[in-house]
């Protein structure tokens, strides 16, 4: 099976991968793995789970590759697919009794150990993100880090746009507190 060459463009790799070339798909993986992992890592607290999600994303991308028609940039398509994979996992966790995306309470966001002044070290962004409840973290990552609009977030998560905005503001406040901004 052919391997990806450095000269191959993403379009070339997509075309070959759509024809079943796993080597070409590996090239797509290497080009986008870092960004997808960053997204998954920010959306979930656990690094092991983030790695599992990265695998799920690329397997799903392989399965759905024939549905990519080139009307958008492949990275954009892959990113959107990754968000859906992560949100599906979040919804599964929710069904199992974890917090709903709108169930973040003030204690979780602004509780006793959330103030950077209580600690000797200010949290960096990644560490502070990991302390946020799932709902706030989801909205913050999707809006402020990944650039989705409130309407898009509402559509993907099933919450109202107004609720998404409120979640975002609360997330920002919590991060500012943890990072001593």
């Amino acid at each position, binding site marked *: 099976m052919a391997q990806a060459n450095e000269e191959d463009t993403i379009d070339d790799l997509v075309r070959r991968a759509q024809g079943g070339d*796993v080597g070409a798909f590996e090239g797509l993986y290497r080009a986008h793995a870092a960004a997808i992992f960053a997204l998954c890592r920010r959306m979930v607290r656990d690094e092991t789970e983030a790695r599992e999600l990265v695998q799920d994303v690329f397997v799903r991308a392989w399965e759905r590759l024939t*549905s990519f028609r080139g009307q958008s940039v492949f990275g954009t398509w892959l990113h959107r697919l990754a968000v859906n994979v992560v949100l599906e996992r979040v919804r599964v966790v929710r069904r199992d009794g974890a917090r709903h995306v709108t169930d973040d309470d003030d204690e979780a966001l602004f509780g006793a150990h959330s103030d950077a002044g209580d600690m000797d070290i200010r949290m960096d962004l990644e560490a502070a993100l990991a302390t946020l409840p799932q709902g706030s973290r989801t909205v913050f990552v999707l809006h402020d880090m990944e650039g989705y609009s409130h309407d898009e977030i509402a559509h993907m998560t099933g919450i109202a746009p107004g609720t998404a905005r409120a979640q975002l503001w609360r997330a920002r406040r919590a991060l*500012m507190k943890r990072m001593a901004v």
Partner: protein
Amino acid sequence: MTHLTEEQRHGLADGSLESPAAAAHLRECAACSADVDRIRRLMTRVSHSNPAPVEADDLWPSIRARIEGQKVVPLPARGEGAPARPGLHKWVWGIGGVLAAGLIALWVARPRAGTADSTNVAQVGDSGVSLVAVMDSTHAYEQEAQALLNRLELQRATMRPELARIVERDLRAIDVAIAELQGAIRTDPNNPALRRLLASSYRQKVDLLKRVSNAG
């Protein structure tokens, strides 16, 4: 003095709010101005954050194993009759399974490197089927499959999501097998058995697409 709302502060900070009145208030209110600046500092730190590095080699083997694992399609249980529409996926799996079994059998029986090519020549003579005829039928099936795929695109919008997912998955399995056969043919172009299997693969793809088209 009435201070800005939370919505106004965040909107001014991220640029989503264009309000001359709110902007004017910022110029006059130190408390609101300081708060909006804090939010902007947070957003600046966010925009400058770099994604955490990932060990690409660490994850690819697992991904590849799962992708490769999808190529194995289980055969249907003996005794299942022609399915009604809700059972469409049963024979879809069956077609892929027969194809996979044929591919595996052919791979096991393939000529090893260093062996004489006489067996290939003998097979051409024994089967009585010329390579040209096999190649012609492959091309014809390829064209028919593409025409049916174009029709399938129109059906996708009204297809049940579960069925669409299964059809897509099994088409993928057949396409992967076809791609492997094409690769094998490139290294062994005079092997008629490979070309017959490729033609058979396309025929199965066409059969699958026809049944989906008729069911839809």
